[in-house]
């Protein structure tokens, strides 16, 4: 199945609820035809609001415009926008069977029953639910509901697919599986997709581009690699993974901290703080190292361990280690961080 797709453009869209609660600052965003954009951010940052503006469930404050291709759809209600939408808790119709849920949009379009049945069959197959077609919604598991919701949204061949945290209601294992399925499906469909989530792993796996939002504005937009490796702000960096801070000062190609020194690009000159991610550091025997700390505790996580180190900087630092590491609290260890992995945020 391959769908036609269309680019989307938001221009200066803001949203104010009531008289003075501006939950979305004026926002502009272009989404290419066939692109999958993920809106990522903490709860309440305005992701759903943005999605609903695109869907046509909310109207932007005066001045904001929404374009689908060249068409200005700002004033069009959702039922005329030809978007497919998957809601966080699915919003399936409890009074219909699985088939009737999926076929609803086609029935509204007055597609003949024969043709409709055929298309519903195709969709059931697409989402691997062929044998569940005649069940009632209440008989489905969470993951199955999620797939019905997806099939229902796809049935009327939408120009745009909008998904609001479609996996959040599921448990961790299932989420991981469906995330992979979803990735495959979206790539195959090639439809313009806006996907809302607050889970950074989901965002990185699914997004061609990730838009990180906070407090009603876009903080950074870019490919998963860009935002992970070149976060525009500490806030983005923290949201996308764990972050360690080293306080100290730059001198002659090295950054001097409490636990020693480490090679550092010149960009850090003048900064009082540099950062790195736990997985970017490696541990080595203390004797050889220019940077040393003391093990405070070791957390065994199964696939890896997290070692917490004191004495490196004023605050405790966390470093990833192989899960079979045999470090003991109190031990002295050396730390190596490749200079190119340091996160140096000059803007701060």
């Amino acid at each position, binding site marked *: 199945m391959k769908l036609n797709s269309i680019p989307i453009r938001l221009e200066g869209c803001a949203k104010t*609820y*009531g008289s003075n609660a501006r939950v979305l600052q004026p926002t502009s965003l272009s989404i290419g035809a066939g692109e999958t954009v993920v809106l990522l951010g903490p709860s309440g940052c305005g992701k759903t609001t943005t999605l609903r503006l695109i869907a*046509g*469930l*909310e*109207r932007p404050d005066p001045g904001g415009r929404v374009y689908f291709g060249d068409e200005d759809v700002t004033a069009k*209600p*959702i039922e005329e926008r030809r978007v497919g939408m998957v809601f966080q808790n699915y919003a399936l119709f409890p009074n219909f069977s699985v088939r009737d849920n999926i076929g609803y949009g086609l029935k509204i379009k007055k597609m003949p029953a024969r043709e409709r049945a055929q298309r519903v069959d195709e969709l059931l197959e697409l989402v691997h639910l062929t044998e569940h077609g005649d069940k009632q919604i209440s008989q489905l598991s969470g993951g199955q509901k999620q797939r019905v919701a997806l099939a229902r949204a796809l049935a009327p061949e939408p120009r745009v697919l909008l998904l609001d945290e479609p996996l959040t209601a599921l448990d961790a294992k299932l989420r991981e599986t469906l995330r992979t399925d979803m990735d495959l499906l979206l790539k195959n469909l090639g439809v313009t997709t806006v996907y809302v989530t607050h889970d950074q792993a989901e965002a990185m796996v699914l997004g061609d581009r990730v838009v990180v939002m906070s407090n009603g504005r876009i903080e950074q937009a870019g490919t998963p690699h860009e935002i992970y490796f070149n976060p525009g702000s500490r806030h983005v960096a923290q949201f996308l993974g764990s972050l360690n801070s080293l306080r100290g000062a730059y001198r002659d190609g090295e950054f001097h901290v409490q636990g020693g020194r480490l090679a550092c690009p010149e960009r850090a000159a003048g900064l009082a703080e540099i950062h790195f991610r736990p997985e970017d550091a490696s541990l080595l025997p203390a004797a050889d190292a220019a940077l040393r700390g003391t093990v405070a505790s070791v957390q065994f996580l199964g696939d890896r361990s997290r070692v917490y180190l004191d004495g490196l900087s004023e605050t405790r630092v966390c470093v990833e280690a192989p899960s079979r590491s045999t470090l003991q609290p109190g031990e002295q260890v050396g730390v190596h961080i490749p200079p190119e992995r340091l996160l140096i945020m000059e803007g701060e």
Partner: protein
Amino acid sequence: MRDLTLPAQWRLALLLPALSLFAAFWLIPIAVLVRISAGGHFLATYADILTDARYVNSLWQTVLLSLLVTAATIVLSVIAGLFLTEHEFPGKRLLVSLLTLPLAFPGVVVGFMVIMLAGRQGLIGSISQALFGHKLVFAYSMSGLFLGYLYFSIPKIVLTVMAAAQSLDKSVAEAARSLGAGSWAVMRDVTLPALAPSLIASGAICFATSIGAFGTAFTLATDINVLPMTIYTEFTLNANLVTAAALSVILGVVTWAILMLARNAAGPATMAAGG
């Protein structure tokens, strides 16, 4: 706030039939009634009524009776309602059905039930006759009315208590017990506070219903001095529409004020819990 899936024109179109019927057959009539009740001199009419010992007395008795009924109903219903939610035993559903059946009995029928119970030929009379050689008859007094109001209030509050108790978070009580609390402490610190909002809400409705109930008093039809009866007497005694209307307005205002007070105490669930 604009709600794009419920456009304003539909909102209006769907509300209008109900609103117009309501306006035509209640709002406007009540407005007219209020005007009539003024009898030309608003202040004077009401001042007369509010200084007439008979009316004030009647109002007091009504309020007092309703308060007593409400208090008694709440105590009894909490005992029975909690008992029925906490224990499983054969025949429980039957008991629940029996307790909630009179939910929609009209006041007149309730009055008759009271006569059946506490009239001269009533069960209580026969039993007391057999036991003490003295016939206990109180259907035609305030006690009879009390019994009647109790009769129609209990099902409502029992239902509320049961619904509220069922939705109680059991783990809170368990938490209290894990901290060493016995049954009474759990009751005092967990169950009753959790039930309080719905009790206040349904108690207010019970109180309001008792204040305005007419059928029961009418059936017992004796000189019970509750306000609805007074209104009725005023109306039938020389068609004193002005006084009847004014008393109705006063009764309405008192009832409404009490519901409002209760709502402020209990939170927004009040009206929804009624019925």
